[in-house]
C-alpha cells in the first residue's frame, strides 16, 4: 500500500518540464502505468527487421514494454504479431528467440495457434471415450490470441496494441520521417548481428541519455578525443510536434583542443591509434551529417555514428532496470570493405562499446543516486526552458520535449 500512497502523492514540481521528480524512476505504480499507457497502447513499437523473418513461418520473439510478443510471417507472406501467451492458462507459448513454425503449440496442454494467432487445435475438445471435453458452447474463435497492428517501412517492423493506430508516417511527423527514410531508404538490409545488455537503471534514463547532446561532448572522452562529436560542430536538435520523438544531428570535427574541449578534464590529445582502421569512416549519405541519433517513442533508438548503423530497442523490466537489445545492420549491397568498416566501428557502440560503456555506467550511477533520494528532483535547464528545435548541442531541449509529452500521456 505504501507505493499506492506515494504515487497518489506525486505532484510534479513547480518547474514543470525543467524539473523531474526522481519518483518517476523508482515507483512501481508509475512503472505499471507506463507499461499500460505508453507501451501497451496506441504508439508504434519497434519489434524487428523484415530481414529477420524472410520466409513464411519464420518468427521472432520480442517484447513491447514488458510484454512478450511473437512476430511472424504467414503463408501469404504477411507479417503478423500477437501476444506470446496461451489463451488457456497464460503459459508462454514460444521460448526460443527465433525459429520457423507453422503452428505455435503450447507446451502445457498443446493448444495450437496458427501464424495469425488463431486457435486451431484443442486436444480432447470432445472428450475421451465420451468423458470430459469442452462444454457445448466452447468456441475456438473466442480464444484467439490478441493480434497486434503491424506497420513496416523500409524493412523495419513496428507493432501496436491498438487496433487502428495512427498511420506510421503521421506518427513520426515529417522531419523524423525524413531522417528515418534517410537510413531505411528501400535498399535491402543485411543483418550483422546482435548485442544485448541488462542496464540497472530506469528505461527513461536511456532516452534521456540519447536526447542529451550536452553530455556527449563531456562524458565521452573517446568521441571527443577523436573529434567524432564535439560541442563546436555545426549541429541540430529536432523534435516532432508532440515532443515524443527526437533527432540529434552532428558532424565530425578534428582531433585537436579547442574552446569546446577546454572543460573536458581528461581529453587525450596525444592519443594516436596504433591501428587507425578502427576509425576509418567514409561518407555514405547524401547530406554531410556524420552522427544522427534518432529516438522514436516509445522504445527505439536509431543510431548512425559514422558507418555503424544500429537499432537499440528498449525493453523495460522494472523501475530499476531495462534490457537494451542492439541490432547492427548494413545494406545487402555493401562491399566487403564496407562491412568490415561497420564491424570495426561497432567497437565503439555495443554492450562493450568504447563509447557506449560510458553511458551504461553513468545510467547505473544515476539510478544509484536517485534510488536513495526519491523525494528529490533533477534539473533540466541547459539551453533554457523551451521545447523548440535548436541549432546547437549545448542544450537539453529534447529531454524537456520528451517530458512534456510524457506528462500528457501519463497525466502526471
Amino acid at each position, binding site marked *: 500500500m505504501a507505493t499506492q500512497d506515494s504515487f497518489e502523492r506525486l505532484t510534479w514540481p513547480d518547474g514543470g518540464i525543467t524539473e523531474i521528480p526522481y519518483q518517476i524512476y523508482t515507483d512501481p505504480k508509475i512503472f505499471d502505468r507506463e507499461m499500460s499507457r505508453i507501451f501497451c497502447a496506441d504508439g508504434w513499437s519497434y519489434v524487428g527487421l523484415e530481414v529477420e523473418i524472410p520466409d513464411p513461418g519464420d518468427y521472432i520473439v520480442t517484447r513491447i514494454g514488458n510484454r512478450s510478443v511473437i512476430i511472424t510471417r504467414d503463408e501469404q507472406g504477411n507479417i503478423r504479431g500477437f501476444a506470446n501467451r496461451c489463451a488457456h492458462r497464460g503459459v508462454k507459448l514460444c521460448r526460443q528467440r527465433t525459429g520457423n513454425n507453422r503452428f505455435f503449440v503450447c507446451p502445457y496442454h498443446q493448444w495450437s495457434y496458427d501464424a495469425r494467432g488463431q486457435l486451431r487445435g484443442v486436444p480432447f475438445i470432445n472428450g475421451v471415450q465420451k468423458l470430459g471435453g469442452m462444454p457445448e458452447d466452447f468456441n475456438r474463435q473466442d480464444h484467439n490470441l490478441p493480434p497486434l497492428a503491424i506497420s513496416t517501412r523500409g524493412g523495419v517492423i513496428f507493432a501496436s496494441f491498438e487496433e487502428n493506430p495512427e498511420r506510421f508516417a503521421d506518427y513520426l511527423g515529417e522531419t523524423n520521417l525524413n531522417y528515418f527514410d534517410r537510413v531505411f531508404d528501400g535498399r535491402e538490409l543485411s543483418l550483422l548481428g546482435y548485442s544485448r545488455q541488462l542496464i540497472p537503471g530506469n528505461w527513461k534514463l536511456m532516452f534521456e541519455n540519447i536526447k542529451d547532446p550536452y553530455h556527449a561532448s563531456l562524458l565521452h572522452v573517446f568521441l571527443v578525443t577523436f573529434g567524432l562529436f564535439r560541442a563546436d560542430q555545426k549541429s541540430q536538435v529536432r523534435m516532432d510536434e508532440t515532443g515524443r520523438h527526437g533527432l540529434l544531428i552532428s558532424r565530425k570535427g578534428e582531433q585537436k583542443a579547442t574552446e569546446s574541449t577546454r572543460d573536458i578534464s581528461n581529453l587525450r590529445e596525444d*592519443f594516436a591509434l596504433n591501428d587507425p582502421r578502427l576509425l576509418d569512416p567514409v561518407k555514405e549519405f547524401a547530406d554531410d551529417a556524420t552522427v544522427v541519433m534518432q529516438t522514436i517513442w516509445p522504445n527505439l533508438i536509431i543510431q548512425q555514428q559514422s558507418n555503424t548503423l544500429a537499432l537499440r530497442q528498449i525493453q523495460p523490466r522494472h523501475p530499476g532496470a531495462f534490457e537494451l537489445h542492439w541490432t547492427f545492420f548494413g545494406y545487402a549491397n555493401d562491399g566487403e570493405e564496407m*562491412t568490415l568498416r561497420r564491424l570495426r566501428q561497432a567497437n565503439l557502440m555495443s554492450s562493450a562499446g568504447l563509447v557506449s560503456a560510458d553511458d551504461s555506467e553513468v545510467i*547505473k550511477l544515476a539510478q544509484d543516486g536517485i534510488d536513495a533520494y526519491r523525494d528529490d528532483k533533477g534539473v533540466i535547464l541547459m539551453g533554457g526552458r523551451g521545447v523548440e528545435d535548436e541549432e546547437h548541442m549545448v542544450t537539453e531541449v529534447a529531454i524537456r520535449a520528451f517530458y512534456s509529452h510524457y506528462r500528457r500521456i501519463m497525466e502526471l
Partner: protein
Amino acid sequence: MNLDLDQHRQLEALYTEYAQLLDDGPLTQWPELFTEKSLYLVIPRDNYDKGLPLAIMRCESRGMLEDRIRAVQETIMHEPRYLRHQITNISGHLGDTGLISAVANYSVFEVVEGELPKILSVGRYIDLVDPHVDGSPRFVEKRVVYDSVLVPNTIVYPL
C-alpha cells in the same frame, strides 16, 4: 595430432599468463600474448551460432588490442572493478600447418568495488595458437564466444 605432454603444458601456461595479465596486470602486456596480425573477437553465442559476424570487441591486430587497453585505462568512464578469469577444460590439437587449434571453457567473475561479486561472462575460447613465436606460444586467433548473451550492464575489460 594430439599434443604431447610438453606441448600441452606450454598451452596451459599461455592461458595461465593470459588470465594473470587480465586479472592482475600489467594490462599493457596482455597484447604481447598475441601475434602482430592476430584476430581477437568477443562474440555473443547467438551471433556465432547463426553465422552473424558482429562481435562486441573486434581487434584485427595487436595494435588494435593496444588501442582497446589504452581506451579502457584512459578514456572509458567506469566504476573501479576487478576481474577473475577461471579457464578450464583446455584442449589442443596440432594441425598440419603447425598451428594448434585450442578450445577451453571460461568464466569471469567481476567485483565492482563495494558490490557483491557476479558472474560477468560464461563461454568458451575457440583459439588458434602458434606454438613457437620467439620460443613461446602466442594467439594467432582468439574467439571468445559467450553463452551469457544478456550482459550485466557492460563489459569494460577484455574477456
